[in-house]
């Protein structure tokens, strides 16, 4: 049996990679993908907790579906906004989007 810590470490690593990507990458769509990575690493952590914790039968998996749904909603709204920006500016590079910098 794989110990719980293994899952947690993988989850934490994925989360760290996702966070790093989300903070460093300049392309909005890539940032989104990094966020998805973060959310899925959370899901991994959650599901492994749910599997290993006593008395949490199945509940964790249910939460995971909720999180997937939330992630989908975020992406749905997010892509629409990114698209709107692209149509206006022909770019999705976060650095170039600076109409309001003072």
């Amino acid at each position, binding site marked *: 049996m794989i110990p719980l810590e293994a899952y947690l470490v993988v989850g934490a690593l994925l989360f760290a990679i996702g966070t790093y990507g989300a903070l460093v990458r300049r392309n909005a769509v890539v940032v989104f993908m990094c966020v998805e990575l973060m959310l899925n690493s*959370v899901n991994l952590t959650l599901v492994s907790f749910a599997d290993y*914790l006593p008395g949490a039968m199945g509940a964790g998996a249910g939460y995971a579906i909720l999180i997937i749904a939330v992630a989908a909603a975020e992406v749905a709204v997010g892509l629409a*906004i990114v698209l709107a920006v692209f149509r206006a500016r022909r770019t999705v590079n976060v650095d170039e989007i600076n109409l309001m910098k003072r």
Partner: protein
Amino acid sequence: MEAPLITADTLVALIPEILALAFIAVVLLTEVFGSRSPNLSSGLAALGALALAGSATVLLAAGFEGSFFGDGYVVDGFALLFKILVGLVAFFSVLAAARWSARTGDTGEYMSLILAVALGASLLVSGRDLFVIFVSLELATIPSYAMVAFDRRRRESSEGGMKYLLTGVVASSVLLYGLVLIYGVTGSANLSEVAAAFTADLSPAALLGLVLFLSGVAFKLSVVPFHFWTPDAYQGAPTNAAAFLSVAPKMATFALLLRVLIEGMPETAQAYTWLFALLAILSMFAGNLFALRQTNLKRMLAYSSVAHSGYILAAFAALTGPALETAVQAVIVYAVAYAVMNLGAFFVVELVGEEGKSFNGLFRTQPALAVSMAVFMAALVGIPPLSGFWGKAWVIFATAQAGAWVVVGAVIINSVLSVPYYFGVIRSMFFEEPAGVGPVKDGSGALRFSIYAMAVFTVLFAFILGPLVLLAQAIGL
């Protein structure tokens, strides 16, 4: 098979939310089926917001209480109070947005977004389960991205929306990771069981969870150092969206934070009051100092909202022992006070324009509007007897009771620090010569009604205060 989770009581408990949901559907469907009359849509949305607030009031008056869905969703006085507030804020925002959204041609959509945020906020204040909290927080947040980016005619809008979105989703993930860690450490998502595991002495995992959770919440509250999205998002957003978003979700998030800290981790909260004090002080100073150099009113109000989040957060530094009750009162009082004055200020900006110079000589062209704006500005500074003063006074009461003198000092210094930029607006309105003819009057009836209503609430806040504090005492936590 255990007993079904839905009983008649559950349905009663959910009446405000069910009504809000029903109105969202009705607003959307009337737009696509019926006549595309913007007035009808906004009227229905206003009715929906009122229904939310009204049903919550009825429940509160009837003394309805209980916890549902396996103790994951709780309806108590505290939650109901915030539901009422959120509903009312939504109501006035809908009125204020009516004129603008009619011009976009998508009134129904915009209105349903407002209602959706209100729905999320109203679910949020009832959450006692980590994941209920997360889902309702997202329900309050995701439509707000769309609200910010709603104005297709201004490029700033979609840009602000995108910045808000990109930072917002990262923050949500961080918050979620925190929640999951808390869940993992405790073994349960229920706050009352979380409390058992969260003592003053935290394991590293629990501490990490707490820090991540607080970071996410701090982002939603635009507290330093997670405030950087605020100015761009607010400046880009349609003004009424900025007004609504700077109030309703924040209120609910503060309520959530109170509930999580008091019910879920009382001992930990006491041990970490210094953290809240630090964040509060940083937010106040950062908000006020950055606001000083803004010429765009929306941007200024955005930084001001950072500062005000700091003031409210200052009350969290008093979540200990004897000051706890006052601290809860302070959060409630400040939230309401901030709601009325900030909504009012944003509404005036909506009507007059966001550039500082459009306010020049407003007192000459539209005295009533100028006086209202002056009232809001003075209230934001904290001049008695306007609403902002009472908010600050309560925060000081709480922090002084807790002995956090540094925080008291910071609140006082910041009140003075904020004078120049708020009074800059008053100066342009009263002392400068009018630049043009002043804002267009037609079609602004509902908006003006909201402005004057907010002005009246701000001025007469002292009379709201007594009942509010009594209520806060009665419901406790």
